[in-house]
Structures are given as structure tokens and as C-alpha cells.
């Protein structure tokens, strides 16, 4: 029984958790959220640019997007974060001082952009070509048609995949600890890791894990909710059609994310 108690105390020592809690709440949680939110935001914007360039008819826009995607999706996240966070640090030092966050966010954004770009690209490509054709037939230019008609539909379909990517990003944000963080710059993971290293007790790290779960698990439910809405929604928001054979062919917007339409 003693051994079991020891194991329990190693992971679930409430006193150790209580000791780490203030730092987690005051420092770790905000820092993790800042890292994740900013890189999600920048990554999404860059990802959309990448997707649009990757789908461009112009080769000189297409292949840099391809290369970008291959590099930042292909490299281990740790390598990218170290290369950018350490490699560009002298540059950053002159701009914002000894703060690893801007470069950490940059590195995370670049990684995220590669994945998000592919998510957007698959979504946009899954929109039937007739949609752009119809927009152009009305008199919209190709870029306007993409912006007003195609991209909104494509993005809608990949929202679940996009949220999954945000979840991955929240977890990956812990890798900024590679860049060396001051006490006030530590994220959830680093605070748990520090406490665990100091005391030899893993409970603070478990607490950090619980914080991550507290953020990510609700998000997975958001994914499921969006997914359900995309599948069934839309149907319910209008009066049922009266003609026979009404609403038998599924509107593209209700189809599963990223699925290619059979045409």
C-alpha cells in the first residue's frame, strides 16, 4: 500500500498543486493563452494567404506557397522554434528587448500557417467549380467571386479541422520553453515543469496538464458541435419546401468538412 500511496502523492499531491496554482493562474495561463491566441490569429491570416496563393493560376504565386508549406509542415516544431527564436534573437533584441515571445509567436504562427493553409486550400477546392462560374456569370471578377462566394463556403466546411489545428497549437505553444523564459514569461508547462524539477514531485505538472485539458477538451466539443451543425443545420432554418422532391439534393454547405464533392 505504501508504494501505491507514493505513486499517488507523486502525481496528485494536493499541497504541491496548491503551491503551484497561483503562478499557474497569474502567469502560466495568461502566457499560454497569449501564445496560442496570437499565433492562431497570425497563423490563420497567413494560412489564408497561403491557400489563396497556392490555388492561384499564377505559377510565381503558387510555388512559393508550396515551398513554404512543405518547409514549415515538414520541420519538427522544435527545430523551427529554435531556429527562429534563437537564430533571430539578436534581431529581436534590438526591437523588443530580451523577450522570446514575439519570436516564439512568429515561429508558432509559421508552423500553424502551413497546416491551416492546407486546411483552407482543401476547403476552398471542395467548393463546386460552378459556384465561381455562377459568380463570374453575374459579373464578378475571379477574385471577388472567390472572396464573396467560394472562400466563405470553403472555410465553413473546414471549421472543425481549423479548430483541431487550434488545439494542436495550444499544445505546441509549450515548446517556447526552448527559448529560455524569465519567471514572468513562463507558460503553463514551464511553471509545472519548474515546480516538478524543484520538488521531485510531478503534481504541479499534472496541474499544468489539467489546465491544458480545461482549454482543449471544450474546444473538441466545439468541433463536434460545429460538425453537427454543418451536417444537419441549414435544413432546419427554413420552411420545408412544398413541391415534391424538395430538398433531396444536399446543399454543398451541409456536406462533411474537406470531403470532395462527387462531380
Amino acid at each position, binding site marked *: 500500500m505504501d508504494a501505491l500511496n507514493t505513486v499517488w502523492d507523486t502525481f496528485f499531491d494536493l499541497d504541491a498543486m496548491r503551491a503551484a496554482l497561483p503562478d499557474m493562474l497569474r502567469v502560466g495561463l495568461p502566457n499560454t493563452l497569449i501564445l496560442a491566441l496570437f499565433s492562431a490569429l497570425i497563423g490563420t491570416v497567413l494560412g489564408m494567404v497561403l491557400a489563396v496563393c497556392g490555388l492561384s493560376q499564377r505559377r510565381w504565386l503558387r510555388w512559393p506557397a508550396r515551398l513554404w508549406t512543405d518547409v514549415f509542415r515538414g520541420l519538427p516544431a522544435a527545430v523551427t522554434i529554435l531556429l527562429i527564436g534563437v537564430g533571430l534573437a539578436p534581431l529581436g533584441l534590438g526591437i523588443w528587448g530580451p523577450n522570446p515571445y514575439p519570436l516564439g509567436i512568429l515561429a508558432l504562427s509559421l508552423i500553424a500557417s502551413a497546416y491551416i493553409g492546407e486546411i483552407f486550400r482543401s476547403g476552398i477546392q471542395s467548393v*463546386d467549380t460552378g459556384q465561381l462560374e455562377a459568380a463570374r456569370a453575374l*459579373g464578378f471578377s475571379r477574385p471577388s467571386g472567390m472572396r464573396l462566394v467560394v472562400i466563405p*463556403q470553403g472555410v465553413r466546411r473546414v471549421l472543425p479541422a481549423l479548430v483541431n489545428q487550434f488545439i494542436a497549437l495550444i499544445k505546441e505553444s509549450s515548446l517556447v520553453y526552448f527559448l529560455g523564459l524569465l519567471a514572468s514569461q513562463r507558460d503553463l508547462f514551464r511553471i509545472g515543469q519548474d515546480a516538478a524539477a524543484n520538488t521531485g514531485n510531478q503534481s504541479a505538472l499534472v496541474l499544468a496538464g489539467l489546465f491544458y485539458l480545461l482549454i482543449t477538451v471544450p474546444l473538441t466539443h466545439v468541433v463536434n458541435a460545429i460538425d453537427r451543425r454543418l451536417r444537419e443545420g441549414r435544413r432546419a432554418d427554413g420552411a420545408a419546401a412544398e413541391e*415534391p*422532391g*424538395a430538398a433531396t439534393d*444536399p446543399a454543398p*454547405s451541409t456536406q462533411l468538412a474537406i470531403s470532395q464533392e462527387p462531380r
Partner: protein
Amino acid sequence: MTQQTRARRTGSPTSGVGVATRDVHLSFGSNHVLRGVDLDVPAASTACVIGPSGSGKSTLLRVVNRLLEPDSGDVLLDGRSVLGDDPDVLRQRVGMVFQHFNLFPHKTVRANITLGLTRLKGLSKDEASERALVHLDRVGLAHKADVRPGNLSGGQQQRVAIARALAMEPEVMLFDEATSALDPELVKGVLATMADLASEGMTMLVVTHEMGFARSVAQQVLFMDHGRVVEAGEPGAVFEAPRTERLQRFLSQVL
């Protein structure tokens, strides 16, 4: 029938604009899809294009509104070449209706129609909405204005698509197999809408497999095969007295 007699008969405002092509060629790679197509649709008349699939009918329509650019030849609107025009402006003058409707599924029926009106025609939201309702009313679907297309039957969707095109007040309308994707019982309503439009004097170029429609509504029927207009004339002549063996064979298959 000439434009004048038509106008007199219907008493409706007519589209004063005819559409024509001159020796249009278009290839996709080694596939020579259009091999010198000449076409003349006088103002306020309806021409139906019939022919087997792969004959270039739909491609021809897309050359007329320049969704596809011809390799050579000319496209004339109101007797004037449009190949030098801004294609986006040209397409506002030429409405198009598609086989698969291509309504925007993420927008309501009303928003499908107002999108072009506010963004391209510069109408205010209220003006656009008002005009949308007028055109929806014409096709009998004003009560569906706030429904999404996915909740409509195919026939209703196609009528909305027609309303969407007409709301832009085009001078010419193109129909690309507008009823081919519809359940049989829904075809009639869409054809009736198209026939109404023709009788009101819209200039229409209609790719169709509906021989009954071609016979009763069109002033001119063109039979296309392998990228060429093989035979053209009044519906009576084309259907009752086909001159070429190819048209005879086609008609024997579809009639």
C-alpha cells in the same frame, strides 16, 4: 418571325439587343471543341441549340459571355464585337442559368439575388431587396425569400437562379440545359418561366434537350455536332424536314 412582329404580338418591352458569333474556334489542348461556329440570334428572339453531349453546346454559351475566351473568331452583342470589352461588364449584360442552378448555398434566396445588385449595380440594400422580391414574385417564389436554397426543390432553385440572373437586367439570357438536372415533374414549371420570358421579348440562347420547348418557343433551332453548327433553321424545318443524316439520326434518338 421578325423582331417587330414579335414585339407587336406580345406588346411587351423587348430586348433590343441581338447576339451573334462569327467563326468561333476553341480548343482545350488537342481537343478542338468549337470548329468555326456562326450564330445569329436577332434581338427579342429565342434560339435553341440542340445536339448530342460533347458537341460543344455548353462551351459555345460560355464563349458568348466570355467565361471562356475563343481562340479565334468574334462575339457580337448588338452588332458590336465584345472581345475587347471588360469581361466583367459584359457578363452583367448577359445573364446565364446553369444546369445545376449554382445558387450560393450559404446565402438566403434573397441574398443570392441582392449580392450582384449591391456589389455590382451599386443599389442600396433596400433597393436591392425590393428588386429581388419583384423578380422572385415573377417566378412565384417571393414567399421563399428568406429560405436557403437547400430547402427548395430543384425546380424552385432553378427559378430562383433565373430570377437572380434577371434581376441584373441583362440584355441577353443564356440557358445551359436548365432543366436537365430536374426531376421530370419539375421541368414544366421552369420551362413555363422560360417561355414567359421569351414571349416578353428577351433575347435568349437556350441549350436544351427539351425538343417540345424548342419547337414551340424558339424562332430558330441550331443542331450542333462535333463543334460545328450542322443545321439551323426554323423549328418546323429542322424537326419536320432534317436535311442531314446526322440530324435525322439525332432526332430519331431523342424524339
